């Protein structure tokens, strides 16, 4: 176990209030590679920690939507007017009002898929294996416990220092987490 490099130090809290306070404390000490793990979203934490790549998601979705619109229009125009132009009920080849529906649908479809896969991608998922899962109590994170992890990747990271700091923030438990 000790052969492996350390991933970070994790503190477990029983109360969201304590967690927020701990995050604030750790953050004020200059730690930036800090992450909380909670059973539900806690916006106060997000306000303290710097936003990551998630800011890009809305723009990605917009791009996806525009791509959908253009795909739909392009496809319909190409098929109806260029590929095999046929007289359908006396309507013009480029019956654009009739094309709006599919343009709308593909906009939504592309945007939605972008949102879903974009979210997973930006989350770095799928990732079934993660060092934190080595921590047995981490399973409670999806139930009723609030975790704070200071990662070893932080330039200021120092095992003892961080452990001390966390221990002083009224956690239920502080653990070291190793990569494997």
């Amino acid at each position, binding site marked *: 176990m000790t052969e492996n490099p350390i991933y970070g130090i994790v503190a477990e809290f029983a109360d969201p209030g304590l967690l927020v306070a701990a995050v604030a404390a750790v953050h004020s000490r200059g730690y930036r590679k800090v992450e909380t793990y909670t059973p539900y979203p806690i916006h106060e934490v997000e306000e303290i920690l710097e936003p990551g790549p998630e800011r890009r998601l809305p723009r990605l979705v917009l791009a996806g939507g525009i791509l959908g619109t253009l795909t739909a229009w392009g496809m319909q125009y190409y098929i109806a007017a260029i590929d*095999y132009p*046929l*007289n*359908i*009920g*006396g*309507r*013009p080849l480029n*019956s654009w009002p009739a094309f709006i529906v599919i343009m709308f649908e593909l906009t939504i479809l592309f945007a939605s898929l972008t949102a879903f896969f974009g979210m997973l991608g930006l989350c770095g998922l799928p990732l079934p294996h993660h060092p934190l899962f080595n921590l047995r109590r981490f399973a409670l994170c999806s139930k009723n416990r609030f975790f704070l992890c200071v990662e070893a990747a932080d330039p200021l990271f120092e095992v003892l220092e961080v452990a001390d700091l966390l221990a002083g923030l009224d956690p239920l438990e502080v653990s070291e987490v190793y990569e494997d």
Partner: protein
Amino acid sequence: MPSIERDFIPVENLTGGDRECDERPTETSRRRFLELMGASLALAGASGCTRQPPEFILPYVEPPEHAIPGRPRYYATAVPAFGGAEGVIVETHLGRPTKVEGNPAHPASLGAASVRSQASVLDLYDPDRAREVTYLGSTRTWDDFLSAFRLRIEPLRPRNGAGFRLLTETVCSPSLGAQIQAVLTAFPEAVWHQYEPAGDHSARAGAQLAFGRPLNCYFRLDHADVILALDSDFLACGRNSTRMARDFATRRRQGNRLDMNRLYAVECTVSATGGKADHRLPVRYSEVESVARELTNALTSKGAPPSSGKNSAWIAAAAQDLLAHRGRSAIIAGEQQSPVVHALAHQMNAALGNVGKTVNYTEPLEVRPEDEIESLRALMRDMDAGGVEVLLIVGGNPVYNAPADLAFAERLRKVKTAVHAGLHFDETSQLCDWHVPASHFFEEWSDTRAFDGTVTILQPMIEPLYETRSILALLDGIRQYPPRSSYEIVRAYWAGQHKGADFEAWWRKSVCDGLVADSAMPPIEPGLTAWQPQAAADQPGGPEVVFRPDPYIHDGSWSNNNWLQELPRPITKLTWDNAVHLSPTTARNLSLKNEDLVRLRCGARSVEGAVWISQGQPDDSVTVHLGFGRTRGGRAANGAGFNAYLLRTSDAMWAGAPLAIDKTGRTYRLATTQPQQEMAGRDLILENTPEGYRRDPDFVSRTQPEPPKDESLYPTWRYAEHAWGMSIDLTACVNCNACVAACQAENNIPVVGKEEVLRHRAMHWIRIDTYYKGDPERPTLYYQPVPCMQCENAPCELVCPVQATNHSSEGLNDMVYNRCVGTRYCSNNCPYKVRRFNFFLFQDWVTESIKMQRNPDVSVRSRGVMEKCTYCVQRIREAEIRATTQDRRIREGEIQTACQQSCPTQAIVFGDINRPDSQVSRLKAEKLNYALLAELNTRPRTTYLAELRNPNPVLKGEGV
């Protein structure tokens, strides 16, 4: 390729010289071709994942002369029919007759073809035809039969043939007559009887009364200003109706439609003719005679005597009208009316000076006209007396259709040897010792006469499909062995008749033309006898029953024809059944409704049938149609309808009284293709009188205005090359349904059967909508043929998700069967409801013989596919290809759709509306032109000419 007898002569280049081929000339391969066609059609969709199965080509070993695989050949012949044959031209593909069309040169056809002529090709391929000689049900050979028959008949020879009887239907074929004569010469004591169940019994007896001898009478309605039909359905299904309808319609549209003829109809059952009439008088069968009497009085005495009858005003007005048109009027007695009515009609026509002008007389068409009922009675007497040892029944089906009181079936048992020759192994064959299968008239040589005596020599188009012989050869076999072929017999007969030098040239020309030039019988002017009708007997009250041959299956001899069974009857639109037709009042009085099963009793005889309430039927008069209720008729005939012959007696051939109608409390479903016959107040059919049209020529555009062309935001499509269109003249349509039959034959339209018709899934691409308007007791009837309208702004195309229906560059509403996935959305969105869907596998992929009828130019549709009229696009394409290969443009009139071609009244005209000089353009430019449901702005290419009727102003308020 079965080589046909040496000498058949095709009509070249008559219509559509070359058509698409089926490329496999032998029969086995043709069948395989069709099977494969089915398989590949079914799998076509999955072309992505299924490979086409291999196909084989079987070329000729030695090609017959002139044969061009891929192009049809046309042969002129005739369809022998009640009241005179109809000249036809038969389209064949590599030896398979596929389509019957009218012969433009033939006086009875003038290019049109009746329903039965159209359907005769299906009779040829009837899978239930008798295929082999049978003795008491077991198979024999022809030689077995001939030698056995000889053994029976030789002992009679010393007695000059006494004991030998021949029973035929009415014989109009000269060579058959000669054959029979030859038999009678060989056996002088033998007796020849004729019996035709729905024959001209009354006409012969009527002529006997009026002229003292039977005569043939025919009409020239193109010269008649006023026509009075005495219970005659001469427009749709009477004798010679194809020609009569043409003449009637020609005269009706004379002088820019303003100089119309006028039609009065007195009738006891609702007929297509009555519905077309300007004035229709529904009376009971028994009253027709008194109406005729009153009319005769009114016409012959100077100034009509005041009559007190309830119809006197009507009769007086009609009489006045007739008197005002002496020499330009015609009085037509119905075939089913009494001899007295016929005789009175002759007298009236003579009185009006119509003879030689609108009414022509010739010597009889029959080889030997006789009182057939009496002839049959004599046969019965002799059977009872044991004087009939050998009975040869040639054609006909007397066990089924002889008058019930003669008990033919029982008496047949007393005959030592009974032989039946016919197309089918039917009710009569079952009770005879021998059955010999006869050939269809498309398989053998023969001859026949048309209404005016014109002779057609019938030529075969195909080798007999089964072990069958022609009747001529059969009769020849009685006298000599081996019998001559039908070709030898007919040719020898006409060689004897021909007076000129070059028989060979005459023969070739006559066969090729489909008629013998100048063979019409010369008109004669017979003198009237002194016969005067006896005073009218007291008419029995109470219900009467009227027998009518079915408009399509006639006396039952066509009853195994699927097309005819499923073809909607002119007014009721019933299929697959006959019915007990009652007037609404009678039905109310008896508290009966449609489809109630009732028992009809006439004395000791009774039969059960389902009620159909017919508007316009006279009260207390019940019409039933003959020809149904077969037990050994074949798969289509058996079980369809009830057998009305069971009520019919030899002294009441056409009507019987008194009749008792008992409710059974049960019901029986009747399949009609048009349950709704009220117009629901919609302007579907525009009408006026010539007077009204003269006063207000723009009435059509006012009531049914065409939406302006530039109203749309979208640009209008232009059709540069051709723009096909159709015009349908409602004034001319007589509801004969020939177009429906022609369309079915041309376009491989499947038959769905009664169950599916009941579910409203009949497949006919064109239908004749029939509506009632006004008083249900005396309604006005309207007919409207509705094919696909080929809308320029087609609503159907817009909703098809797979582009299976779209517009061709010529403005056709194409239907691509192989692309269709079957959402049926197009049908929903069709305001005219002209699309038809293959809900099941309606096409018969199994019956071998039926496959041979199919038109190889039209895809055979499989299950799950929408189909509809495309103006016979196969004909358009072939004409275009022909024109292209000949470096010319398509000529006006070169393309005829099947419906147009068959229409006896030329109500349907098809052509290029881009050409201002085309007939269709001229018709569309008429002020009577209107589009159905024009307000929907579908811009149909098929438009209608509003109907004009010509009521007598004197009879205003009398109902039409």
